[in-house]
């Protein structure tokens, strides 16, 4: 038996956050209280390594976040039992509490650069190895130009939309560069409306709101 971990919440929100929820493979979701925190989990003989499980994880985190302030956990995070989980949480409790306070009642909205593959075609094989390598170099240069242009667009968007958000994070997804906005729950609609106006001009795509995955990271303490 293992525990699949979905999210961290305040201990006071343990019941409200998970009442009548189901998780991966329809397993019942519950909370394990660990000091001031609660960990949202479900129990499994085996966590399947499949897309459906990842999507079920996402849906569960989404449902918890819709109810209470929560720190989303990456999919695939399993522990042996409650005692192991409590021990692990105890070592990181101060950071988790700070993270929960920072993320609080906030969600994430993302802008994705729409990247078009404009790489030149490779030369025919008959032209030989040197031509091929030069062709690959040209492709690499073209790809970097496209990415630079995409990041410039996103940087401009971040300046425009930044006043609607608490903070921003520039990152990359499978489809290219993104800028993510951490936004107060009560201002999500405002940010989405502004983002959609920007997206209508072309070059970017809006997604969200999400649980604040892109802002959920435990950082090492700075030396004193």
């Amino acid at each position, binding site marked *: 038996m293992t525990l699949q971990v979905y999210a961290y919440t305040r201990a006071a929100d343990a019941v409200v956050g998970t009442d009548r929820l189901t998780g991966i493979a329809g397993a019942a979701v519950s909370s394990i209280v660990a000091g001031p925190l609660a960990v949202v989990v479900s129990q499994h003989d085996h*966590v399947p390594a499949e897309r459906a499980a990842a999507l079920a994880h*996402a849906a569960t985190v*989404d449902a918890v976040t819709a109810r209470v302030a929560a720190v989303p956990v990456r999919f695939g995070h399993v522990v042996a039992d409650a005692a192991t989980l409590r021990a692990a*949480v105890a070592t990181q409790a101060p950071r988790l509490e700070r993270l929960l306070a920072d993320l609080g009642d906030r969600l994430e909205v993302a802008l994705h650069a729409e990247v078009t593959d404009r790489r030149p075609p490779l030369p025919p094989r008959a032209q030989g190895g040197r031509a091929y390598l030069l062709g690959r170099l040209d492709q690499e240069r073209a790809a970097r130009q496209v990415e630079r242009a995409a990041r410039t667009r996103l940087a401009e968007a971040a300046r425009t939309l930044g006043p609607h958000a608490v903070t921003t994070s520039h990152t990359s997804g499978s489809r290219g560069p993104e800028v993510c906005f951490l936004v107060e729950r009560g201002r999500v609609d405002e940010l989405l409306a502004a983002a959609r106006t920007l997206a209508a001009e072309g070059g970017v795509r809006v997604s969200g709101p999400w649980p604040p995955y892109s802002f959920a990271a435990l950082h090492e303490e700075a030396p004193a």
Partner: protein
Amino acid sequence: MTGGPPPPAPQGQRPAPDETTLVDVLDRVLDRGVVLQGDLLLGVAGVDLIHVGLRLIVRSVDAPVRGGP
């Protein structure tokens, strides 16, 4: 045009995210979100391998199919 079907709707709690794509969901749950580091968490041997394996398996389903005329 967005790619892939939308993820399963949340459990009746709120509307599905705006303009969500399958890839956007997987990007978040596979690459982001908090992870507690350290041996204390590895109650089951090979958890890291399982996690990496999950990423490879789930991602490979979404790998674009190249080729054509």
